[in-house]
């Protein structure tokens, strides 16, 4: 080992005698230093990968038990709706159908319309049933606690739903703001991450650039309380400024409340949960 001072910076500094992998492994969740069986992955690493992929697929294809969620939310009232996508296979192929309410449910929802609502709340299964099952109720309760005095519409529990379904819900309820809590596309490391999209003046046809997004609400990520605090900050400013989206800037938020405007889906941007 050379006695000269470490020459590589900043990430590749060599500490005398140390196994470099312990340092790198502490700095990344990437699957590094797995070794090889011939050319291929060793058996254990291969099967761990398959387990993580299976968890992600089960999250995508699972169904939310909305009856259980409604019971947990009571006495806060809620109602179930369906999108126009009949089943998961259609939902995955036809994002346009997942953005609109089934006709009968749109009619039923109209009975709840009230111009006095401050905020409509929608739970959308999106691409992870597990995210909704694990995070939706604590997040909703934290939101209610973070917005004292706000008149919150009954929680809309939506099946086969994408973010934009909230536009139609908000429009029908005559709410000035809608927050959609949606199961995010599962990764191999986290399969139950919830996101929140906030939209001012929701109406069918709103653009994704007119929303703000809070992402990564899960056990190892953002807590329901922190997410609710961010949403409360955004909702308060959205109401005052009468807008959401790129103009409601991250820079304006306190550092602890860093939020991002929603970006259009493309092949070089991380596609959020079923926008």
């Amino acid at each position: 080992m050379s006695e000269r001072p470490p020459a590589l910076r900043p990430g590749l500094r060599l500490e005398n005698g140390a196994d470099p992998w312990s340092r790198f492994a502490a700095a990344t969740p990437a699957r590094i230093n797995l070794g090889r069986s011939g050319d291929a992955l060793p058996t254990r690493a291969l099967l761990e990968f398959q387990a993580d992929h299976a968890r992600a697929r089960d999250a995508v294809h699972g169904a939310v038990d909305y009856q259980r969620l409604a019971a947990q939310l009571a006495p806060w009232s809620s109602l179930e709706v369906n999108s126009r996508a009949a089943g998961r296979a259609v939902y995955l192929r036809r994002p346009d159908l997942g953005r609109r309410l089934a006709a009968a449910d749109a009619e039923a929802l109209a009975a709840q319309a009230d111009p006095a609502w401050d905020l409509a709340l929608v739970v959308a299964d999106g691409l992870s049933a597990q995210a909704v099952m694990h995070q939706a109720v604590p997040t909703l309760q934290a939101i209610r606690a973070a917005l004292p005095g706000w008149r919150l519409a009954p929680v809309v529990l939506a099946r086969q739903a994408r973010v934009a379904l909230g536009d139609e819900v908000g429009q029908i309820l005559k709410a000035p703001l809608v927050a959609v809590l949606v199961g995010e596309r599962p990764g191999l490391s986290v399969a139950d991450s919830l996101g929140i999209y906030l939209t001012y003046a929701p109406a069918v046809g709103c653009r994704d650039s007119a929303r703000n997004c809070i992402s990564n609400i899960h056990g190892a990520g953002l807590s329901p309380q922190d997410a609710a605090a961010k949403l409360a900050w955004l909702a308060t400013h959205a109401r005052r400024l009468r807008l959401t989206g790129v103009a409601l800037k991250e820079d304006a938020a306190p550092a602890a409340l860093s939020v991002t405007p929603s970006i259009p889906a493309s092949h070089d941007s991380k596609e959020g949960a079923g926008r």
Partner: protein
Amino acid sequence: MPRYSTLLAGERHVFEDLRALMAAASPRRSGDELAGIAADSDLRRVAARLALADLPLATFLNEALIPYEDDEVTRLILDGHDARAHLPVASFTVGDLRDWLLSYDADEAALAALAPGLTPEMAAAVSKIMRNQDLITVAAKCRVVSRFRTTMGLAGRLGSRLQPNHPTDDPTGIAGSILDGLLHGVGDAVIGINPASDNLASYITLVELIDDLRRKLDLPTQSCVLAHVTTALAAMEKNAPVDLVFQSIAGTEAANAGFGISLALLEEAHQAALALKRGTLGDNVMYFETGQGSALSAEAHHGVDQQTVEARAYAVARRFRPLLVNTVVGFIGPEYLYDSKQIIRAGLEDHFCAKLLGLPMGVDVCYTNHAEADQDDMDSLMTLLAAAGVNFIMGLPAGDDIMLNYQSTSFHDVVTLRHLFNRPPAPEFEAWLRRMGMIDAKGRLAPQPGDGRAARALLAQGEAA
């Protein structure tokens, strides 16, 4: 617009215009169904192919799928068409072109000479009447070589991009993935990072990290941070060590506008990167990514099927003589490519069309967790692409992108294909691996013990240099 029709099984199938004919002739895929332009039956799909096979190639020079006046990509395609190179196929129908491409007359030299005479629409059209086997056979005859500090695309070689992404751009975490990749012989095409945040400070930190490592290890490769082209321009203004300038591109002016780019902006970035003269072997300084469905996703497809729009992106890429181009074929999701059958077909189409048009094409063989696909399917596609002579694929730790949350090919996959097909990396990079003692007596990449010995040795050599 003229109508096209064909008689099949006693039924006359009519196609309203050339766009409709092309869309109906496309192999089934969810994106064209979502756009409402796919054939509504298998028989109609074949009827469209029969009509397309009889279509004179020259039709594509006289009838623009997206109007010349409305779209700068159409203008680039038609104004840049090389009529002399086109002469050998000027009298062909689309069907004749397929037969010729498969013939023994169409060798490496003939195909290279033809490339500037083909438009993306011609390449897309002929691909629609070719089986996967045909796409592989013809692509394997095409050779597109590009150079910066390594020579990419030589016969009998397989390149790899080392993709060490990290959810927070942590330099130590990224360095760990780079080190692991190098120990697997990955990274001759580029060490390319998708940054978690597209800002100038982070861009400069990351290009400096790779550049530092490259110089310390005397590593023959190039770096790239896959941020927006305007970020790269700003970094070059600050004299950051920018090797390759990256941009995602699409096949229509409107879709490119959705990416925040135009041909003029790409030209500005191309000139800025050329002026740095950082390449030692050549001056191919651009890196582009594409992918079917991006134009539809941006509502900028003009009713053109997603595979044809994708091929039009290759005209944009070709204009700037890139070192690397790759389609990110399974990233966009099941609403565009539903399952492994559609992803595999699209990957082979994209590779074929790009090679035919003269691009140094690689493929990000990948899928998301909501697509009907898994690692077995990626094994199939990467093996087919190796047979087709793909210029490069991706190498990630176990194939798991912890920042973009999708799965691609792994360091191990690169090792597997190299040994299975006897395709070493770019010669300059291969020589480096030998110097570093990473090649065993049988010419294979030697397995590394998991105790950190190899990593320590590599780092120590870097420090001693």
